[in-house]
């Protein structure tokens, strides 16, 4: 016969196992909360401000982009967009390429969508 009380001590362990098994979104900067309405891009070669600012300027020209935060230490660009603004991966790749870089991957899309 199933005895609920005897299973109680196992619940925390089960919860932990379940949580670990679920795909956990991890931001490029190490935290686990995505900024809303933003694209988080990992870009190759973002080591110096001369190139990073160029990428920032490139995104500033795009309709719907509010601002772009670039972390040259982590090689990450966070593109903040107005709600409803959507870019395809191909568009993002093109913007990054036009600024002289290679897009490694899109880590996050607005609204929490995973790549």
């Amino acid at each position, binding site marked *: 016969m199933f005895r609920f009380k005897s299973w109680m001590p196992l619940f925390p362990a089960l919860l932990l196992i379940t949580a670990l098994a679920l795909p956990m979104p991890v931001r490029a900067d190490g935290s686990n909360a995505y900024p809303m309405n933003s694209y988080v891009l990992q870009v190759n070669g973002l*080591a110096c401000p001369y190139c990073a600012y160029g990428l920032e300027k490139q995104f500033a020209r795009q309709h719907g982009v509010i601002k772009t935060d670039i972390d040259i230490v982590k090689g990450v660009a966070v593109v903040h967009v107005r709600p409803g603004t959507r870019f395809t991966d191909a568009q993002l790749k093109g913007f990054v390429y036009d600024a002289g870089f290679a897009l490694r991957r899109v880590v996050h899309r607005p609204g929490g969508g995973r790549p």
Partner: protein
Amino acid sequence: MSRAGRVGWIGAGVLIVLGAAIKPVWFPAPVEPPYHLVKTWGGEGTAPGRFRNPIGIAYGNGRVYVADSLNHRIQVFDPDGRFIRRIAVPDQGRPMNIAVRDGKVYVADYWNDDVLIFGADGALERTLGTPGKAGSAPGRFNSPTGVAVGPKGDLYVAGFHNQRVQKLGPDGRFIRQWGHTGEKGYVEAGWFNYPIDVAVAPDGTLYVAGGYNDRIQVFGPDGRFLRKWGGPFAANVSGPFNGWFRTPTCVAIGPRGNVFVADEENDRIQKFTPQGRFLTAFGTPHRGPGYTEIAVTVAPDGTVYTVNLIGNRVEVWRPGPAPAR
């Protein structure tokens, strides 16, 4: 000895002779001791005396001027690092390499595609280019990153995305350019691959820090190409060796005419004779992402001031080894 053996010995001999000939040219030993660090100031932040992405530095009139890029300002210090005042760069500008002459401050503003000239009182006196609009016509800029003032007041501006260096009269009128607008060149003299900074010697000789070309190019007062250096044949080959570069981002002329280059991705400053002979190197080593020595300037007494990008600070260096305590 067999024929193969003779060929082997001859080949080895040729390699040894070539190596002996190449080594002092491509891998020179330092002829001066490195400089030693005597002081730092700064730290990350927005308060006076703190920085967010300091990128340029210039010494003039007994003051140290620092381009504090992400804080959109120039900060002015005395030589000991005491904060004196700030000069705001308008329209969220990103000041890059800067120059100071007769109290005036010349600022290459990457973000707004213009060159700003501030008076000794910090007031904006003049704007060259069209603010907020990149352009490639003569006298226009696309992400300017370096500025220098010649002996007759002419301005020299490195245009990062236009792949050129422009010379403008004191009134801002276009005079000439080096490089081919919008076209990158990697090996040939007179071509650039994202030029970043310029410096002009008292005799009018122009030095260009080639940025992604990993070399310095030198042009005479008449504009003629004189020489280039940085790695084998100065042909866009980067490396960590003495006299080689990995993204030279700033060039400055010392009081004796020597040339100081911020070799950003090697985390060091390299010092050369005006002819390009390697003298010594120094800097703050760094492990992990990001780089340290991104800009350099030299005071008349030979003290070197550098900008440590990742450390958000100014570093002060004196010639020779640190004195024994």
